[in-house]
């Protein structure tokens, strides 16, 4: 009984979170490559090559992006103001790098919250099935 109440409370909570998230961000859920790109940029600004390598490292070699896929995603994220482009001052070559905008950071946090609640809900369901 307690478990059922808890389950319902979590379900309602997930519904509220989902509503709030969707009310200001229509692009969720993110695809795995886009999520990994954003996670790579939350740590520090990076240029294209560095993003590719970091995504590969984060996913243990499971997600290996091509340059076409990477720059397609970068283009969409730039268009939606999730990331911004700037010229790296430190390097002699003056390479272009990318960093998260405040909006991008907010949206990434919203996606992380969404995933957390989903995982929690999934765990409850699995636990209910097993018990």
């Amino acid at each position, binding site marked *: 009984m307690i478990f059922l109440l808890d389950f319902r409370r979590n379900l309602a909570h997930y519904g509220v979170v989902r509503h709030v998230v969707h009310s200001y961000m229509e692009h969720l859920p993110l695809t795995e490559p886009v999520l990994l790109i954003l996670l790579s940029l939350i740590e520090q600004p990076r240029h294209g090559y560095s993003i590719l390598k970091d995504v590969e490292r984060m996913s243990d070699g499971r997600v*290996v992006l091509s*340059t076409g896929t990477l720059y397609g995603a970068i283009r969409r994220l730039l268009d*939606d103001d999730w990331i911004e482009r700037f010229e790296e001052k430190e390097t002699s070559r003056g390479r272009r790098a990318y960093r998260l905008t405040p909006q991008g950071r907010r949206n990434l946090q919203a996606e992380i919250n969404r995933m957390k609640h989903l995982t929690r809900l999934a765990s409850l369901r699995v636990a209910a099935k097993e018990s």
Partner: protein
Amino acid sequence: MLNFYETLLLLYPAEHRAIFGEEMAAVFGELRADNLKKKRLSRAAFWLRETTGLLSGALAAHLRRPDGPFAFPIGRFTMRNGFRFPKSTILFMALILGGVLVAIKKGQDIASSVPDVNPPLPVHIQPAHSILLGGMPLFFAFFYAAGLIGWVILFALRRSGVHRLDQIAGEK
């Protein structure tokens, strides 16, 4: 090898190439240098991944352009300033209408080819023009009215497209 990559880059829209072309080629150059040390199979996988990535990326870049010749809604349908109704939707609507008209005509042909020898039940197929001029406008009027009521509700709740655009403009 780099020339091959640069040739494939020509498949992208000119605007995309102007912004990212040089950078993409530079990143590709770095990846290729990394890949030279790897085994033949890994090198082949790298080339396959890059070629398919570029081809699909170029196609997606063309399809995503709202003013492009192949404007086609992919991914999520996002309304923004300067948004135009996609031509593909008009094309599909025309195709569906054409399909309906062909189906009606076929139905009429089948009905007229069946010999009228004591038919079990009278088969009545309305002519296409009577459907288009009779029930169809009423049918569409009903849905337009429903859509209008829905929009009024959204407007009252300040969730309509106009408010969204204002919100986006305000954020910028």
